[in-house]
Each structure stands twice: as C-alpha cells, then as structure tokens.
C-alpha cells in the first residue's frame, strides 16, 4: 500500500446543487454502475480511481460534496487543494442552472486561481423533461472560458470523457514543470500571477 503505484496525483472536486447527480456521476465513473436510489451526501465523500493518460498513471482523488447551502462552510474548505473542479447542473432543473453563476463565484473565492474547471449538464438522457437547452450551457461556459459537456450518469454518456478531459487539462498544465510535488509547484506559481478572474467579474 505504501508503494507508489502511480506517477501523478490529481485532486478533483465535484460541486453543484443538491440532486443534480454528482454522486451518481462519480459512482458511474468509479464503479461503472448506476443506481437511482442514492442517499443524499452529507458533508463530503471521497473516491479514488487511477487512469492512464499520455503514458502516465494518474491517480485521481475525487471529492464529492453536498449541494445544500448548510454544508458550504465545510465543503468550501476543500476548494483550496483542488486542481480540477467539476461544476454540475441538471438539465431538467432550471434553478440548478441559474445557480451555476453562484458556484462559479464560490470557486473564485475559495479555489486556486488556475484550477481547471468544467461545467457538466447532467441527466441528458431525460430529453422529455429538459428545461435547459444545450446552447445555454455552451454559452455560459464560453462566457467564462470553461469546458462544457452534457452528461448522463444513468445512460453512461460522456462520464469517462469528462474526467479524462479534465485530467488531461491538468496534466497539460503540470507538464513541463520540474518534477517534484506537482501540487506544491502549482500552488507557488499561482501566487505570483495577478488575479484575472476577479477583475473581470465586477
């Protein structure tokens, strides 16, 4: 157990309103299964999966957070260490889409500045109940310069791809840096950069 069986370690975080399907997405990714009956997440959950990317073994440490407001103080404390964040909404739930802006603001406030972000419009298998069009998802992602994808944990659409794209983006960023603890390196670099996100928001 103590031996290192991977080359890199990436910490990812899943956020978004309660009930959008964060736990199901993670479960699909880690266990390749779907159950409709998931207990709601209280606080924070944790899973690991090792993937291969660009010839490297990458261990993904994925934190699944609770969506409800009450848990924000506990969940935002995890933002800092995250190298990638998946922001999930539910395409059948307008409110969860509107709240994307709020979640993005949370990221700006609490996460590292160069954290890789990705927006996921989940439950795309339920086209008959859709209230948020794909275009609206694409638009908001473009506005913020973030990757976007529609997913379905149930029908297993784009789940694998979402994680490997996010991991790929982080890999690109860390590649070319000196070996060592990648997380620390990123952290140091970041501090010297002027804040770009915050100035353009207000």
């Amino acid at each position, binding site marked *: *157990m*103590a031996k290192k069986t991977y080359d890199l370690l990436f910490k990812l975080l899943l956020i978004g309103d*309660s*009930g959008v399907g964060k736990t199901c997405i993670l479960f699909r990714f880690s266990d390749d299964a779907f*159950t409709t*009956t*998931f*207990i*709601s997440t*209280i*606080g*924070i*959950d*944790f*899973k*690991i999966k090792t993937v291969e990317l660009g010839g490297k073994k990458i261990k993904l*440490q994925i934190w699944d957070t*609770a969506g*409800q*407001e*009450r*848990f*924000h*103080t*506990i969940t935002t*404390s995890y933002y800092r260490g995250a190298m990638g964040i998946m922001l999930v909404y539910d395409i059948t*739930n*307008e*409110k969860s889409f509107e709240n994307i802006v709020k979640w993005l603001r949370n990221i700006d406030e609490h996460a590292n500045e160069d954290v890789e972000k990705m927006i996921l419009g989940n439950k795309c298998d339920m086209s*008959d*109940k859709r*209230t948020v069009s794909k275009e609206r998802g694409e638009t908001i992602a473009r506005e913020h310069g973030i990757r976007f994808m529609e997913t379905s944990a149930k029908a297993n659409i784009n789940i694998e791809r979402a994680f490997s794209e996010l991991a790929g983006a982080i890999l690109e960023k860390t590649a070319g840096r000196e070996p060592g603890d990648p997380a620390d390196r990123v952290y140091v670099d970041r501090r010297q950069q002027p804040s770009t996100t915050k100035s353009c928001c207000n």
Partner: protein
Amino acid sequence: MAYRARLKEFDDILNQDVIDLNSLRKLSFQGIPDDQGKRAKCWRLLLNYLPLEKEKWDTQLEKKRALYKQFIEEMVVMPGEKESNGDVTMGDHPLSINPESEWSTFFKDNEVLLQIDKDVRRLCPDISFFQQPTEFPCLEIVNSNDIKRLHTRVQRRVLNCANVERKGLGITKIALSVKKACEDYAPMAEGKEAHWEVVERILFLYAKLNPGQGYVQGMNEIIGPIYHAFASDPDILFREHAESDSFFCFTNLMSEIRDFFIKSLDETDHGINKMMNRMLVQLKNSDMDVWLRFQQLELKPQYYSFRWITLLLSQEFPLPDVLRIWDSLFSDESRFDFLIYVCCGMIVILRNQLLSGDFPSNLKLLQNFPPMDVQDIISKAVELSKQKIF
C-alpha cells in the same frame, strides 16, 4: 432463556405506575429487544414524549395527536383548499407581490418541499420499507385526487417555472395536465400512501413550525429510524399513530441536536465543530498512536466525523444496527457524550488498518465503515468511556 428474562426486565419497569427513568436508561443502554414494540415504547419515554406517570399517558397522547391533526389541517390540507377552487381574481393570487400573500408563502414552502422531496425518495434505499404503502394514510390527503399530496405540489412547481410566463393562465391547471404525462415515480393509487410520503409530511410540518431551521438535508436520516420503529409497532393502537408520535419524538430529539444542522452555530458549544473537536481530544486520550497518524496524514475529523455526528451514525450502519446504537445514545443521560465514545470506538477498533494505511485508504475505510458486529463497537465505546484520563 436470557432473552425472555430480558423482556421480563423491561416489562417490570414498564409496568410500574411511575416509570423509574434511571432503571429504564440502564436497561435500554444495553439494547432494547426488537419484539413486542418494546423499542417504540422505550423511545417514547427516553425522548420525553411520554411523562413518567402512566396515568397521564392517555391524555398526553390524545392531546398531542389532536394537535398534530390540526397541524396537518392548517398546513397541508387548507392551503390546497384555496388553490383548488382556482379563483385568482381576488386580492391574493399567484402573481401577487405582496409578501404577506398566502401564495407567496405557498411558493416559499415549495422550495423547502422540493428539497425534502428529493431526500425522502432517497431514504434507506437498502430496505423497501419506505416504498411500501402505509396502513394508515392521511385520508383527507390521499382522497384528494392527488391535489393535496405534498409531492404533487413540487412537481407542479417545477413545471410552473417553465409554463407560467408564457401562457399566463391559472397555474394549477397547466401544471396538472403536464404532470400526468411525465410522472417517473410510481405514484400510489388514490387512497393509498407510501411511508416516504408520510415522512415527507412530517419533515414539511417540522420545517413550517421551525422556520429558523427549516429543512436541512440529513434530517430525513434522523426521522427515518424513529418512524420505522413506530410504524412497525405490533400494537395497532400505537402503529396507527406512528406519524404523530414520531413527529413529536423527532421534534424533541431535534431540540437536542438541532445545532448540528445550523451553519451559524457551528462554532458554538453545541455546534458541530465543537463536537468534532471533542471527538478528536477523546481520540488523543484513547489512542495516541492513531491520533498521531491522523495528524501526520492531515486526516481531519471533518472528513469523516461530520456525518457521523450530525446524523447520529444513521448513515454508517444498516438500519437494525442504527436502532441498536440509538438505544444506547437515547439512554445516555448526558446526551450526546456517549456518541463521542462510539465514534472513537469505531476508530480504535480499526487501529491496525489505520496505522498502516495511507490517507486515501484510511479515509475510504472511515467513510465506508466495514461491516462488523455493532455490539463490539458499543463495548469498545463503553470501555473507552470508563478509562477517564482527564
């Protein structure tokens, strides 16, 4: 015949005219038998729902059950009354901006309801109990052509957002017609009601009556086991009132643990952070090696014990084990000190694995507690509680 003897011990205490609370606590702490509705009976006493004087029970039960009926009438049945006659020409209508408007309350309630609805459908998925119909549905509600079912209200609400602006007609009608088309959750037939619908109502009433807290996720995991115990009482006279009785027991229990659920109280004496700290201090006293290891790995108590403490361990174990643990927790005179010991006991029992594990494997282990005899955990907790160090 140790079991028989145990049952008799309970009977001896419960048959007294005035219940000796201390003896009851001592006995229940060892676990309450699953049979004969003993657990429900004891919990009603341990959670201060029933007074110790037996002669007062009937009046207390009558009073409380009537009160609960009134709550339903006022907060679930009546609001729908106004809505279903569909007359929106009066001052109070769905688009009214008057904050006093009953419609405004109606929509605010539905926000709460939406969250409750998501959670009660996800309650104890490992057993089928909550999916099954109750023998004692609320008749006024289940015979209302679905109109008064709480979850009907939220399904409607979601659709309202999409439809109301465009058409500007009477909301109820549009939504109702759409609803029929896209129901994905097997609805109970008219006249029937599933246990999860009952739990939904309990939580909704609690949120209405305690606006300072409203509904917080996880409360479903607290009411779940209580309602389950009460609704499986073999005594039909009690089973019939499982809803109201568990509502009041839940309310009493929440009055002791509600601070865990309120963000602004995190740092106060009874807030969740204090509890997690107490647990950590206890762990340091009980098992310095594990404590040091956690320190080293930066494995913070928030990562695992937040849920343990907030939910009184209800998500960590299968329901029968949860019931057994709660017997002890509810018998704890200084609630919830024993909870801290149980949490530490859970950690100490896994010490060998935890000492050799790295951060991810330890965290996984703690978040997915391995199956084991719950009695071992309780014994360990008792052992820790006896070795007072500070």
